[in-house]
């Protein structure tokens, strides 16, 4: 008998008390928790996202489509960045206001090459207001998972209000499970020293978010 058969046979023997013929979905699950906590206008939801992002030490900026290239240029310059990683489908106009070297997201790039890049600029798939979370799904304006991981500075543009949802239950139906997802809530952090939160371990130590309105 294979180990697979052994484990499954043990499971079935262990469940002798479950009536034969009971279907899995007959075991009751009451979903009477909230879809979203509290009622908010669209503007208030965006405001809550900004608050919660900032609460976990992300730097939050607001922009319109017209002002975006200049803002991005300024933020990268303030950071002292000379190189910026860009996913393949990023709107080229976003970087019109900066003259630094663009590094394309290539499959052949080694992690060491990514480590030498100063910043990464991406969009996102969904942002969750209640938790201050950005979700990346590897879409054309987000790229491979590693490009938002290895560089020390991540600049992420969220289109508001269309990419913003209130809560975790509202986010999941908008995400495709077969895509690799990265949920980001603030810069990397740890609670491993005396259970106290400290920002800045292996992921980007600086997370900047631009809430882009009217795009």
């Amino acid at each position, binding site marked *: 008998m294979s*180990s697979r058969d*052994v*484990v*499954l046979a*043990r*499971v079935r*023997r*262990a*469940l*002798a008390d*479950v009536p034969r013929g*009971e279907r*899995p*979905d007959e*075991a009751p699950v*009451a*979903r*009477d*928790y909230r879809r979203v*906590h509290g009622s908010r206008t669209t503007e208030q939801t965006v405001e809550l996202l900004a608050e*919660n992002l900032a609460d976990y030490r992300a730097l939050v900026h607001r922009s319109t489509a017209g002002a975006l290239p200049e803002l991005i240029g300024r933020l990268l310059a303030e950071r002292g960045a000379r190189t910026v990683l860009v996913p393949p489908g990023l709107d080229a106009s976003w970087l019109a206001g900066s003259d630094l070297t663009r590094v394309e997201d290539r*499959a052949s790039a080694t*992690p*060491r090459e990514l*480590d030498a890049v100063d910043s990464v600029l991406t969009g996102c798939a969904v942002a969750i207001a*209640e*938790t*201050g*979370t950005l979700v990346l799904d*590897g879409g054309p304006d987000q790229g*491979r*998972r*590693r490009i938002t*991981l*290895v560089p020390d500075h991540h600049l992420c543009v969220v289109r508001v209000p269309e990419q913003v949802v209130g809560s*975790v239950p509202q986010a*999941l*139906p908008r995400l495709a*499970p*077969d895509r*690799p*997802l*990265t*949920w980001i*809530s*603030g810069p*990397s*952090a*740890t*609670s*491993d*020293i*005396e*259970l*106290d*939160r400290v920002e*800045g*371990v*292996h*992921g980007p130590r600086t997370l900047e978010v631009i809430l882009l309105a009217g795009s």
Partner: protein
Amino acid sequence: MSGTYLGMPAFPRAAAAATRDGRLRANLTHATHTIRDKRAAAVAELDDWAELRAAGAAVKDRTLRHLDHYLEQLEAAVTAAGGQVHWAVDADEANALVTRLVRETGEREVVKVKSMATQEIGLNDALARAGIRAYETDLAELIVQLGGDLPSHILVPAIHRNRSEIRDIFRREMAGWGRPAPEGLSDSPAELAEAARLHLREKFLSAKVGISGANFMVAETGTLVVVESEGNGRMCLTLPETLISVVGIEKVVPSWQDLEVFLQLLPRSSTAERMNPYTSTWTGTTDGDGPQTFHLVLLDNGRTDALADTVGRQALRCIRCSACLNVCPVYERAGGHAYGSPYPGPIGAILTPQLRGIGGPLEASLPYASSLCGACYEVCPVAIDIPEVLVHLRERVVQGGPVTRGGARVVLKPAKGHAAERAAMRAAAWAFDHPGALRTGERLAARTRRLHPRRLPGPGRAWSATRDLPEVPAESFRDWWQRTRRTSAAQQGGSG
């Protein structure tokens, strides 16, 4: 404390030593009290916590009641998405499997993201015996590994170490594992985190094989979920060419939607955050993004034995948040090592005896490592009634009875240590049934009062070692009643 749980003493002996360690107690008190208040605040933000908790328990119960169905569904979905699924009945088989999979890559080094399952099976030691070096990359796991130590907390395995101890370990040990600690490293948490970042960066950038566990596996989609804070998880899950995930079979949940419950319950219960900094989900392999080879090792190692116990199986709902450790008065004083397994605290006291059986002295002592105060049940995000299971397991230890071990039904004998207690209870029952004998015995005891020892001899010694023996009165209640009732009845003219 060196890196093995083998031959650990039973809980009372280990706890007696730990409670005398003033620094350990101070470290634990500081850390658990910090997180306790924060967790309460994070939970209070959600006015539907009770409903989320009930749903979390119900989803897990549904999964456990039909675990065979969901495991087969998961296997099919992972395979369809390009992953390879393996099954391991016990720790030895899982270790041999992972060792073989690493060897097939030709690599001698692996990076690991913190995983309870691989702690449980002792994977690092097994890999070391095969000449493969496993680097722990979670900060607290790194502290434990560099210190040649054992984890003492589910979330923060180095909770027993304070910042200056961590600095000393980094200064002393980092050079032996790779990049040394920076010159003049202080004990500020930010500097310590920076030292870990620099030390591990080299490993991440050159790693070819990553090993992980998973917090959840979604049966309908074949998606695995890892919840973390530092980004070491993302490094291990995305940079290597090969990813091997070792996951307990109880980690499966039925549907994608079910994550909406657990991604709200887990971070708030665990680190008291609205959301942890990073959550990664992946389904099989993705062309051009992340590891191109993915192995999932599904681990039993006692879980089906726990599943067979209709009272005890609720322990398999556990999502490893560690909230029960942080509120437990026994854990706070005894520390994690006294529990003799990677699962300390209240959840460990019910999980370890069920995964390993209650045959050994440590496992038989664990159900007693509790005051049954119930704080663990109150904070448990999936409503595991830990006191109920503790009492149930105590009954098994004392009275014996049917249990499942290694998939087979066996009948346990009553614990030997309790034979004297049962004999005493039988003697007491006989005496109370025979009033003449009881009276004679009481009078005899009263007359020999001066000769009574302060401590009981023989099997009663352990009981009386921590208790004062009651003094035997000069006159028994029965004699006093007979004497005074007669007198008072005469005084009151028989009106009573």
